[in-house]
Every structure is written in C-alpha cells, then in structure tokens.
C-alpha cells in the first residue's frame, strides 16, 4: 500500500466517524426534545399513548446515540483473555478439609451422644418452625363435600328474588342460589327448563325435577371448576368456556366431549305451598373438580 492510499483510508475513516458523530448528536437531540415534550404532556394532563411514544423516543434516542458511539467511534479490535483453572486441585481441597476438621473433627468423634442429641434437637426445632404453616388454612373437613343447600331452603336468583316455575322461560336457563347465599361459589346452580318428558333420568332423580321440566345442576365444572356458563338450547347441551367440556342436559348432565370426566351433580328440587321452588336436599354428589377423598363419606 503506498502512502497516498494510506492517507485516503485514514481520511475515509475520519469522515465515517464524523458522520457517526453527527448521527449520534441528532439522536441525543431527539431524546432531549422528546424529554421536554414529555414534561409538556404530563403537566397538560397526561395522555397514555403520547407518553408511551415520547418515553420511547427519549430512551430510543439515547440508545441509538450510545450504540453509534459503541460501534463506530470506539476501537473494534478483539481482545483475548486466558482462562484460569477452575479447580483448586487435590492439594487445595485437602488443605480445606484439614482446616474444616482441625478442631471440630476430634470433638465430633468423641462426643457421639452429644452429636446425636444436637441433631435431634435441630429436627425438633425444624418441626416446631413448621407449626405456624398449619395456621394458614382451616382443615378441609367436609367443606368440599357440602354446600349451603338444605332440605326446604328456597331457591333465589343472583339478586335474591324468589324463583318460581315461571321465572325460567321455555328452553331458557337461570343461575340460582340458596336463599341467603346469593353469589355463593359452591352452591351456584343452573336451573334449566326443558320440554316435559324429554329428560332421561333414573326415576328417583326425575321425581326431584318439578313438573319434569325444571332441572337443576351444579354450575361448577367438574373438570377445573369454571362456571359452566354457555347453554345451547338446540342441542340441550352445556358448554364450559374454559376447556370446552360439554354436558348433555337431558341425560343427567353426562359429559360427552372435552376433558371433564364426571356429570354435573344434580340438585333435587320441589315446589312449596306458595309456588316457590325449594331444595329437597344438597347436591347428590360433591360439586366441582375431583379431589383425593371425594368418594369417601
């Protein structure tokens, strides 16, 4: 390479660098202006979208400037660093072992009963420290197997209004609760009105369906506990929007598609002297997703 070429190369480098400097200056200026703009917008009352864009410009302008600086103005040469040995070696480990055992080792060997008691006391402390964890929740007991539904309790809707046979339109459904427990998470039930004679239930369960038309099932999906909120009147099927389990209303809420394995438990219903719907007892089975001792009394 002759001297002329060399000088030309250097010149080009400096024009390159000058260009990079200018670009970085523009980027930093954009950041400054956007920062001022941010102040104006904030004190003018704020506006989420403009704030986001201006924040982006402040940060992005700074970023572009710094990146140009890093890539174009700093030397690009590669550095090499030697690795060091990670291990301390056999001698190092032995020295550490000696330091560790020097004073404690002999005492440990001599007082074996004391060491055992120390371990036992440590274990006792560990268990004692676990006790407060038990305060975090009540014992499950029978809570998962029971709901507030009782024999004779009246059926209400979510606003607390008493439900009668006429509260549900033909082929319609409403969400119902035991009186005094509106909004209850485990007692929520779907009251569905189907044509007379269409239900295929065992005789003793059909008796708990007033007029043979008003059937009630738990609204909690037996799969993962979502409210089964969608009803297709054409196919008389219930659909859980979370994982698409589907239940056949006419066939005792039998699951026929999706991941649910169990029927929605039926709620036995009757009608009292005033024409209000009442429960004849709790759901026939525990409601909601399965748990370990679900099948035990």
């Amino acid at each position: 390479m002759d001297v002329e070429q060399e000088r030309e190369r250097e010149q080009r480098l400096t024009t390159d660098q000058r260009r990079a400097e200018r670009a970085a200056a523009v980027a930093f200026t954009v950041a400054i202006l956007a920062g001022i703009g941010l102040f104006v917008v904030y004190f003018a009352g704020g506006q989420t979208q403009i704030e986001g864009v201006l924040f982006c410009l402040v940060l992005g302008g700074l970023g572009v400037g710094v990146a140009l600086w890093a890539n174009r103005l700093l030397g690009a040469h590669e550095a090499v660093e030697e690795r060091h040995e990670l291990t301390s070696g056999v001698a190092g480990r032995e020295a550490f072992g000696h330091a560790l055992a020097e004073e404690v080792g002999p005492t440990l060997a001599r007082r074996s009963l004391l060491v055992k008691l120390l371990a036992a006391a440590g274990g006792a402390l560990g268990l004692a420290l676990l006790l407060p964890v038990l305060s975090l929740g009540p014992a499950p007991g029978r809570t998962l197997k029971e709901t507030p539904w009782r024999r004779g309790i009246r059926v209400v809707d979510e606003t607390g209004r008493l439900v009668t046979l006429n509260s549900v339109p033909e082929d319609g459904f409403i969400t119902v609760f035991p009186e005094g427990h509106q909004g209850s998470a485990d007692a929520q039930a779907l009251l569905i009105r189907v044509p007379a004679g269409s239900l295929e239930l065992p005789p003793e369960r059909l008796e708990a369906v007033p007029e043979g038309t008003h059937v009630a099932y738990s609204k909690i999906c037996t799969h993962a506990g979502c409210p089964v909120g969608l009803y297709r009147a054409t196919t008389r099927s219930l659909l859980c929007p979370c994982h698409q389990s589907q239940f056949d209303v006419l066939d005792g809420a039998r699951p026929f598609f999706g991941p649910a394995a169990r029927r929605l438990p039926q709620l036995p219903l009757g009608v009292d002297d005033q024409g209000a719907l009442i429960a004849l007892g709790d759901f026939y089975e525990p409601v909601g997703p399965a748990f370990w001792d679900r099948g035990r009394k």
Partner: protein
Amino acid sequence: MTTMIERSLKYVDERLGTASFARRALRKVFPDHWSFLLGEIALFCLVVLVFTGTFLTFFYNPSVREVVYDGPYRPLQGQHVSAAFDSVLRLSFEVRAGLLMRQVHHWAALVFVAAIVIHLCRIFFTGAFRRPREVNWLIGMALLFLALGEGFTGYSLPDDLLSGIGLRIFYSVTLSIPVIGTWVTYLLFGGEFPAGDIISRLFVFHVMLLPALLIGLVVVHIFVLVLQKHTQFPGRGRTERNVVGKRLWPQQTFKSVALLLFTTAVLALLGGLAQINPVWQYGQFRPFDVTSPAQPDWYIGFLDGALRLGPPWDLTLFGFTISEVFWPAVLFPGIAFGILTLWPWIERRFFTKDYAEHHLLDRPRDAPARTATGMAGLMVFFIMFLEGGNDILGVLLNVSVEAITRALQWALFIAPVVTWLVTFWVCRSLQRSHAHPARISAGLRLRRTTAGGYETAPLDPTGNPE
C-alpha cells in the same frame, strides 16, 4: 474535575482497596455474538419490572373488601367491586401516567419470560450447559420457575373476572394432587375457594418473596458466569483455553447500556400504544360469572392447552380419587420440566458419555440428537399452546372447536416424532454440506518463506494458526 475523580478514587481505594480489582474487571472479555444478548434482555426487563412494579405498589390495594366504584369509567359506576379492583381502575384512569406504568409492567413481564425462554433455548441448543456450567443451568431453571410464579401471581392481583377464573383453575389443579392436595390447597388459599385471604397472600408472594428469591438468584447466576467466564463459538483464534471478544470497558459497557435503553424504549412503546389486560372490560371477579373466549398470558397457554387436550379419565382406587386434571396439569409439567432441569446429567449419562469440561459451544447441527430432542420438546409445548387458543383458532379458521381439539390430540403424538426426524435429517445434511459458519475451509493464506519469498498455504480446519 480530574483531581476530584482522582481524589475520590484514592478515598475509596484506601478504604476498600478496590482499584486493582476494578481494573481487572474493566479488562474482562465478552464474546461478541448476538445470542449472548438474550439473557441481558431478560435482565433489563427485570430492571423495568422492579421500577414500574414499585410505582404500582404505591397505588394498589390488596384487599377484597367490597366498595362501590365511583370513578370516571362510566360502565362500572355504582357497581360493587373489590378494593383491589377499584385501586387498579383508579391507577388506570385517575393516576397520571398510571396506565402507562401498568401496561409497561405487563408487557415487560411478557417479554421477560420470553427472553428467558429464548435464552434457555440458546443454552440448550449450543450445549452451553455442559460441565462446568451445570450449576448455572440449575439456577437458570429456578429463575424460569420464579419468573412464571411472578407472572401468575401478578396476573391474578387485579381481581378481575379473567384472572379470577385463572385462579379458580389453579385451585382445581392443586386440589388434584393425590393424598395431600386438599390440605395443600387449603393452606395456600386459606380455605375453600374463593377464600378472602388469597389476594393479599398473592400480593406478598408477588412483591416480596418471589422478587427477593429472583433477584438473589440473578446475582448468583451472574456471579457464577463471571467466575467461570463466558463460553464462545469456535472460530479463528478461539480455543478451550481463552475467551475472545470485546472488553467490558468501554465496548461491552456501551453496548449493554444501548441494549438496556432499546429494551426499555420498546417496552415504553408497547405500554403506550398496545393495550394489554384491559381489566375494566372483563369486570370484577364474581365466582358465578365467566367470559368467553378466555386466554391466559402466553406463558401459561401451554398449561391451559394441556388441560383442554387432557383425556376425561379420572381414577378411583380404594375409594380415593385421582382427578383427570392431575395428568395434564401436574404430571405432564412435572415430567417435562423435570427432564429439562436434569438434561445436563441425562445427556451425559445416556447419550454422549461426555464428562469433559467445555468452553467452546456446539453448533446445533453438530449435536443432531440433542437438537432434534430439543425441537421435539418445543413442538409438544407449541401444540399445547395452540390448543390453549382453540376457541380463537376455531373462529379464525371457521372450524369447530371439537375438530381442532381432536386434530391436536393426534398431533401431540405425531408432530414431535416428525419434528425429531426432520431436525435430525436437516442437521446431518448441513454437516455434510460443509458450509459451516465456524470453519473457514475455502481459504488460503500467504506465508513468508525462510528464503524471503512468499507462498500460499491452506488454512487448517479450525482456522487457527499452526
């Protein structure tokens, strides 16, 4: 100015003796490869999360006490909502820049987990987890689980309908654990769902326990990285005994600062322009309401999809029940993440028998079995992720949800096998093609002879001088 800097350097050094250590730190070498920035992006998201999250805690109220909403958002005026939900609405509509902070926080969380997952893929596919880096692999996996926990607990805090349903599903999942499920669930939730304590407990997990663990482990993760030095791709002048790249000061520092600024800039833009988690549209959580379609944040999508794909098989043994939820939501992730966590040991024990120390990375093509296994695993998660959006896919493709579920149930078994075979074949073909980015085979170099003349000589395969 100079004397002031000198004086303060002297002051610190005379008391802490930091100058020689700091000098060595400035000279530390970082390999120059874009894929090494993925972990940095995760770190910078964490920085954004800490700052925006701290801002949010000043306004958020983790209480389920019922209040009447009387803020400026008309559709909800006069409704009974929880104090938590009310405070999120206030933060979104009344606190200046509050909505921006909330949305940047949510976006940062999504990008955080994404960056961690892609960083994990980089480590996996290049074999960077091999000895001596198994320790940092374990810490990295713990960080992934903590990030997922942070994501889920944070997602549930607004007490809106969508997150409330997510919480209900999580409750059902813990309930499905054999033997101890009911007890674990009751201790965690404070009783039968929706027990009143859960929001305040999630809050403590989200802003104290998990962040403390997360930040502590990030520090250890980086400490181990510095101690063991970076891995690097093979190439000219790069050996098992050295690290080639840019020094910490100034090149690497400038680059990292620029990346921090870019990451934050993108998150600010997303938070400003791209609406995320509009809880006012979902409304207050009520245990008997449900929305449709319902999707969680992307990183929980595979689990929701697994629940949708799961077979309707519950098991009764001696009167005890194992829920159908157990298989897809406890057993599957337990096995999948168990294999992933133990992969460095599984690979060397059963496949490579390679117990040696490695600082040079594998190109994915050079470890075809590992690459194929990783891709097959990703395919399993991808199919579950797709199924998690089966209701949205159904609308988009005008196909019934039932058909999509059945197709994906088949795909879950077929696609990973096909992926494995195709990936293996692609790796082998690339190996045979000799077009290897780490080897400079087509090249000659000029060599000066002892006689003073010049001659050309081929480069050796690694590109290293002989």
